[in-house]
């Protein structure tokens, strides 16, 4: 049976979380190694935006400033996410390592299958979205959880997990947010709006988005949620997770990415390093 590396479960600030994910990804591109799974939490609320998003057009900078909500650009694609009460996972692996393939959809589906098995251990019946929602509420188009894409996870028709990927030289990083609780009002307010009434937006989000707390059939906390999702990965991927720390190279790269990229306004606001 193959083994995957499981990194320590930790709560970091958003800058560090992104730097760790990218450091593991870059090292995997350079040195290979077994797939890596990581679960993490956020020290304080953060809005992350997708690699190519226009932060001024999408995020309410004034609101985020008043609430001390950090704004961080991800290395991955996709839309803006408000991270607060959630468990975040990240997977780094070779695209060619079964069951992954070079096409993106197969990777999404393979990881979604792990998440489905994990959530099932809490009695939550999640399923793959077969198609995206066509009628996204205006002015929420830049918000990840307002837009379920094909192959993302739904519970009773509402999105519970949003994921995004980066790819380079045969390797991928996929990370995603599994919502523990959902705050529709703050999620709406961190986004920029030019149209539509706030009550309408909140009502829309409350219908379109759900969370673990709402559907879990047994008690859980952040650690037990990470544990059962990890078991879902082990079962679906037929492997054993083995806890290990970041390598020295990864730690060095993390520090470099932190100071040269994720802690800079140039990257977070303009998308340049």
């Amino acid at each position, binding site marked *: 049976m193959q083994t995957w590396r499981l990194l320590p479960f930790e709560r970091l600030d958003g800058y560090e979380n992104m730097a760790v994910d990218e450091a593991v990804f870059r090292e995997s591109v350079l040195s290979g190694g077994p797939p890596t799974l990581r679960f993490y939490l956020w020290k304080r609320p953060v809005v992350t935006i997708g690699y190519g998003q226009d932060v001024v057009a999408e995020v309410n900078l004034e609101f985020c400033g008043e609430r001390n909500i950090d704004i961080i650009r991800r290395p991955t694609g*996709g839309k803006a996410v408000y991270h607060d009460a959630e468990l975040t996972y990240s997977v780094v692996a070779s695209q060619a390592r079964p069951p992954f393939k070079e096409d993106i959809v197969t990777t999404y589906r393979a990881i979604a299958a792990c998440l489905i098995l994990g959530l099932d251990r809490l009695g939550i019946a999640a399923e793959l979205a077969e198609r995206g929602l066509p009628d996204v509420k205006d002015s929420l188009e830049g918000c990840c959880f307002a837009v379920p894409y094909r192959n993302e996870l739904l519970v009773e028709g509402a999105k519970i997990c949003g994921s995004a990927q*980066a790819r380079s030289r045969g390797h991928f990083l996929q990370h995603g947010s599994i919502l523990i609780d959902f705050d529709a009002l703050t999620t709406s307010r961190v986004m920029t709006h030019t149209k539509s009434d706030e009550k309408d937006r909140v009502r829309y989000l409350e219908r379109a988005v759900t969370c673990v707390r709402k559907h879990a059939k047994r008690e859980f906390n952040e650690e037990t949620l990470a544990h059962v999702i990890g078991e879902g990965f082990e079962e679906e991927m037929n492997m054993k997770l083995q806890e290990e720390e970041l390598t020295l190279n990864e730690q060095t790269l993390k520090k470099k990415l932190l100071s040269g990229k994720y802690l800079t306004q140039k990257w977070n606001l303009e998308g340049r390093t």
Partner: protein
Amino acid sequence: MSYPDDLLYTRDHTWARVDDTTVTIGITDFAQESLGEIISIDLYPLDSSVKQGEPFGIIESDKTTAELISPVSGDIISVNEDIFDDVGVLECDVYDAGWMIAVEIQDLGELDNLLDCDDYEELVDQAEGRR
């Protein structure tokens, strides 16, 4: 899916059209189809240098960013700026209108590291589990 026989290819799904010492570069049909709906492209600017096997830009689809890997080393002598405003061209014409950069190659020997169309087709078949 068949691939033009006048091009060379990388394992990272980029192609190279060689004309003397000028190498024009783009992505293959396979790359375009597996990315899904392409949203934007970010390419290294004119006059910057690229290295074989290293990125020359990033392409973003609705849920993924992917580094574009250069087939050769050299200086970028031309950038197709038209695709910045019309990424849709990649869905219909990756090999001509969808070219991305042109590079003045430094070492023609690097071309020996690239795949011909038959080898590339075999690589794609393997990636898709057909072989």
